[in-house]
């Protein structure tokens, strides 16, 4: 028997705007100028909110914060979703979560240490999963449910490059391929998993190509090009809704900030590298494009910026107005029907609260 080739793979990189903001008109999506403006507004909104959160963390009002700086084009993925789709986010997805309809004050509440914030406004958004890659399997299950009940919707699940090393990633991809599930794996390859660079995370050339091993297609997109992200995610979601199975999208981007407010990236990566990525900034690039299309003016951006700042300030007031929830919350949501032991512990919490008040009064 002669040897023959039994598998040939194909992975493409896709972008619409180049680094200078020049557009490939053949690939340009048909957006109205209002839609383009909205996309831009979302990106600067996320950047402003992100900046605020870093400051709030420094002043002790928020816990450890994970910045989205540099990955703002992620909002395009949320805008590509339909109402009945589901978003299964990871911990660097404030842009996605907000663009899908959650409120600033909800994210501020979670960041400030209250579980109540995780009840996001906006349709079908799961709370953020912190254990890396675990949420991919939930997305698979939700997509499976859609398939079984013959809904024409899809799930977008988001995660980082580091997540592709976890077993859960591979198991989720495998299930999705075997059962041909309507799920889009949206990998934000920001080149780093805390201090570990992408090249030490996997020996494969791209992350996108991993999809081929599970029997479906993978594509790389320029993750600092919101139009490319929009087009790629829209197409993958459409394919999923039509019953044509899953897609892996590798969004090539860069984590411009430290991993979190508890991290110091200068320990493990060069300033040169970060500087080089600054030139590819998704907002700058999109601004140039809008300017060339005569949609953007400085006055307009200033006005929008002002509105955004006002809204963020308002949300902070709202977040501060949220009354402190009682300590009995700790035990009240463990089960729908509490157990005898949890009810006893609830009494203990109430008694401890009363004792504290008495001690304070003394």
């Amino acid at each position, binding site marked *: 028997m002669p040897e023959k080739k039994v598998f040939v793979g194909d992975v493409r990189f896709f972008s619409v705007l180049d680094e200078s903001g020049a557009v490939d008109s053949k690939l340009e999506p048909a957006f109205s100028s209002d839609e383009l403006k909205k996309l831009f507004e979302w990106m600067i909104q996320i950047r402003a909110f992100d900046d605020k959160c870093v400051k709030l963390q420094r002043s002790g009002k928020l816990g*450890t914060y994970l910045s989205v700086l540099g990955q703002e084009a992620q909002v395009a993925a949320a805008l590509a979703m339909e109402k009945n789709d589901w978003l299964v986010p990871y911990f660097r997805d404030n842009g996605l979560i907000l663009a899908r309809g959650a409120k600033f004050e909800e994210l501020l509440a979670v960041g*400030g*240490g209250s579980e109540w914030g995780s009840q996001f406004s906006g349709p079908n958004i799961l709370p953020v999963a912190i254990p890396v*890659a675990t949420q991919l399997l939930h997305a698979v299950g939700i997509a499976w449910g859609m398939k079984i009940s013959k809904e024409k919707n899809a799930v977008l699940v988001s995660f980082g490059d580091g997540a592709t090393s*976890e077993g859960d990633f591979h198991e989720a991809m495998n299930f999705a391929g075997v059962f041909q599930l309507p799920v889009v794996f949206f990998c934000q390859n920001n080149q780093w*998993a805390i*201090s570990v660079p992408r090249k*030490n995370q996997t020996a494969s050339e791209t992350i996108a190509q991993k999809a081929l091993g599970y029997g479906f297609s993978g594509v790389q997109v320029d993750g600092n090009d919101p139009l490319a992200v929009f087009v790629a995610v829209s197409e993958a979601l459409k394919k999923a809704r039509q019953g044509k199975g899953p897609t892996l999208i590798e969004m090539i981007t860069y984590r411009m900030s430290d991993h979190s407010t508890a991290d110091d990236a200068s320990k493990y990566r060069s300033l040169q590298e970060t500087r080089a990525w600054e030139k590819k900034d998704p907002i700058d690039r999109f601004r140039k494009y809008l300017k060339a299309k005569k949609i953007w003016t400085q006055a307009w951006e200033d006005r929008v910026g002002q509105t955004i700042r006002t809204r963020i300030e308002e949300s902070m007031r709202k977040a501060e107005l949220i009354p402190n929830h009682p300590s009995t919350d700790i*035990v009240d949501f463990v089960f729908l029907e509490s157990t005898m032991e949890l009810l006893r*512990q609830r009494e203990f919490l109430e008694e401890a609260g009363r004792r504290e008040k008495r001690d304070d009064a003394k």
Partner: protein
Amino acid sequence: MTLMNMIQALNAGLFGAMQADDSVLVLGEDVGLNGGVFRVTEGLQKKFGPDRVIDTPLAESAIVGASIGLAIKGFRPVAEIQFSGFAYSAFEQLVSHAARIRNRSRGKFSCPLVVRSPCSGGVRALEHHSESMEALFCHVPGLKVVMPSTPSDAKGLLASAIIDPDPVLFFEPLKLYRLKKEEVSEDHYEIPIGKARLVRPGKHVTVVSYGSMVPECEKAALALSEKGIETEVLDLRSLSPLDFAAVQESVKHTNRLAIVHEAPYSFGVGAEIAARIAERNVLELDAPVVRIAGLDAPMPLSKLEEAYLPNANRIAFEIEKLMNF
């Protein structure tokens, strides 16, 4: 002797162990160039090179599973799980293999592996970064579980864990990492696994604790002593094997026992100690055993963390009640 916090003591311990034995490897997420997210492995890669201090891909099951293989092959891996709340995907490897390979092969193979992991709360961290799930591991036959509460115990226990012929889970209460400094010997020394430490002698009541709650028990003991209640505080240091003899010894002369941990109340280390006392020493008790513990609920986010965690006030309050029984 040098003044060290727990991080520095652990770092010194790892340094010494790697220097003394070429088969000791350190591996995990961000342990190399970054020196670990808490800096416990700071400087090790620089000194011993990337073949012995290894930044792995992000995969806990692989870190532990591969460490089992390395241990079988004759190395002494010291694996780090970045937070104990992320150890669960490695659970199968620990339970099904690390804990059983000696027994399964009737001693032909063994697994001298250390898994270090920060644990417990009190620092207003994100979800899953404040877990106290040590009892899960204590329940597994074939695993040893230790948790120091001071810098010098941390260094000595780590030395014992690394030379131990069997798998040891080494939990580090992250709240204590930088809480206090003490004089620690630069020389090699071992704190034996399975030996409790008498933190404070007392004749009226025994308080058994470990990890993050030890300093709270000490504070409570101090406050109680002003009221004439002399509390004997024991730090278990090793949870499995347990120094039950030390607990018995103490209870024999105090006749009262409280157990304090921040892990959930039910099915925990406290339950084990209380059950053994009930079985073997019940006639020596003047009052029922008391458990002062976290709640049977997921560790809350920061706003309610304080309400969840036992503290010195609550410990003192419960012990006074116990004294008045």
